[in-house]
């Protein structure tokens, strides 16, 4: 396969582009104007380029999913507690992550350009990432014997921003012996030609405060698992176009006053996203093949600090710090 998909004008099934568009659309903030433009962008490049280009989105998306999983460590041991609302998250990217450079050793440059058949060399893929400059194209440079022997255009950024947003509705119920269950959920929905999309998260928290009445702060432990799947409708044996998951195990503490709760915690977390699709190149049929790549989220642990204001509604503001810095807010109705 020409991993660098540089031939303009060829028609390709850029479902990965649409799927990533979908994930970006799981938010109340849609920065880029047209979801189709991301599809058009990713149609022009292959896996070796698409991975570093979109990797920052995958890392940030996982960190967002594992954010704002609680807004207090207090869970009553008697009496019902119920909540419904929406959580908003944003990861603040490092400025360096708006560009990328990846160096790949190539045994036979002829696989990319037949004129270079038999020559070994190096490919340098560089340019804006998915959240980089939308006016500058990336480049794919081929070097042999220390000399540039070929240069092709990459793609520009899709959305020039350092903030990666996500929003999700949330429901919770609890209050029996300190247990609370939480669900995040989008109903399955068909997004154009992409197929059915499902988003589901569930978690359980437990507070030992019923046993530690005199402890000065409330304590809580819990876990949360989430998955977002996009169905592959190509009918070529691949169930899922996108298969992502996020998991977190956390320990939290909080201190409450009238109308105000301060809370903090530590979490061990993970996330990953696997993209699979069948690449079909009409102009170069020999390049047609299955494409699949998986990226594990970078963040493995985080510290959280937040505050909840309880005035009719519960408004919480939170910051999470690990490899990625994530800020979130939540608005919950309940009792």
């Amino acid at each position, binding site marked *: 396969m020409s991993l660098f998909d540089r031939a303009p004008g060829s028609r390709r099934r850029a479902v990965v582009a649409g799927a990533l568009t979908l994930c970006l659309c799981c938010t109340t903030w849609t920065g880029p104007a047209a979801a189709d433009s991301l599809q058009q962008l990713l149609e022009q490049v292959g896996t070796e380029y698409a991975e570093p280009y979109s990797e920052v989105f995958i890392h940030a998306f996982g960190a967002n999913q594992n954010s704002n999983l609680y807004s207090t460590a207090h869970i009553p041991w008697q009496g019902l507690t119920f909540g419904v609302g929406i959580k908003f998250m944003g990861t603040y990217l490092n400025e360096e*992550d708006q560009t990328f450079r990846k*160096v790949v050793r190539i045994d036979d440059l002829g696989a990319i350009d037949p004129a270079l058949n038999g020559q070994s060399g190096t490919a*340098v893929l560089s340019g804006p990432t998915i959240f980089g400059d939308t006016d500058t194209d990336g480049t794919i440079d081929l070097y042999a014997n220390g000399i540039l022997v070929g240069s092709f255009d990459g793609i520009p950024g899709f959305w020039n921003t350092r903030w990666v947003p996500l929003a999700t509705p949330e429901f919770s119920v609890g209050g029996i012996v300190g247990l609370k269950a939480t669900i995040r959920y989008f109903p399955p929905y068909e997004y154009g030609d992409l197929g059915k999309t499902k988003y589901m998260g569930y978690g359980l928290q437990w507070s030992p405060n019923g046993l530690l009445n005199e402890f000065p702060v409330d304590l809580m432990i819990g876990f949360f698992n989430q998955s977002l799947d996009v169905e592959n409708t190509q009918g070529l044996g691949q169930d899922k176009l996108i298969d992502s998951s996020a998991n977190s195990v956390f320990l939290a503490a909080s201190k409450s006053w009238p109308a105000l709760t301060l809370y903090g915690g530590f979490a061990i977390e993970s996330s990953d996203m696997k993209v699979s699709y069948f690449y079909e190149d009409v102009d170069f049929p020999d390049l047609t093949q299955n494409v699949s790549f998986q990226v594990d989220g*970078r963040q493995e642990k985080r510290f959280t600090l937040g505050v909840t204001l309880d005035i009719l509604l519960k408004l919480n503001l939170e910051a999470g710090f690990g490899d*990625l810095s994530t800020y979130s807010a939540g608005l919950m109705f309940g009792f």
Partner: protein
Amino acid sequence: MITKRNRATGAVALLLMLTVLVVGGCESDSVVPNDSLPALTEGEAAQQAALAAMAVSRVGPQIVLFDGTKLSSKVLGVYPYTFPPGSDVQGTVTLEFFDGGPGGIHSTWEEADYALLYTSGEEGVTVDLESGGGFGLTFDVTALLDRPADTATISGGGVFTTGEIDSPFGFTDLVVTAVSSYPSGGSMTFTAGVHELLVGFDGDSTAVIMVDDVDTYIIDLDDGSVTEITSG
């Protein structure tokens, strides 16, 4: 009822929120690959030096081959020279001629005993290779002209650029003549990554690259190819 305790609580909460906001300016660690450019091998550095030497044998002699009767000068002694279509080198260099040495005054090319040759902007002149790809060179050199002998002794240097790789070079008493495109003497120091190569010219169609004072490669100045010298 607002009590002192509640006020203190509110103050702490506000302070905390402010802290969160301030700390909110903290950005994430970088998570995207930003690989360094591949390190050049000695062989690759030698290839770059060979191509630079080939280009120098095309550009350098312009200092003495230049015919001021065929070009106009808007400013006395300042001549832009554009390589003709079909030549190995493409682009424009600027030649300035002086009478009275480095501190002299601008003069016509016939009266000059000192010259500058330089490129403007970042691109300089370019060379496209038959095998594909290419490179560019910038120049910033000075030359002492010997009119009776029609030779020039060149100092200064420039930068060889291919893709994102920049390799500077410098001349030591490089002698170019009007009778041959091959420099008749002097040397060029070429630095590519961690490699520093010395290219020696002797007037014929080849040049020698020395590595650590040892003759290691031979350059064909006609096509820029390089061959490693094997012992035995």
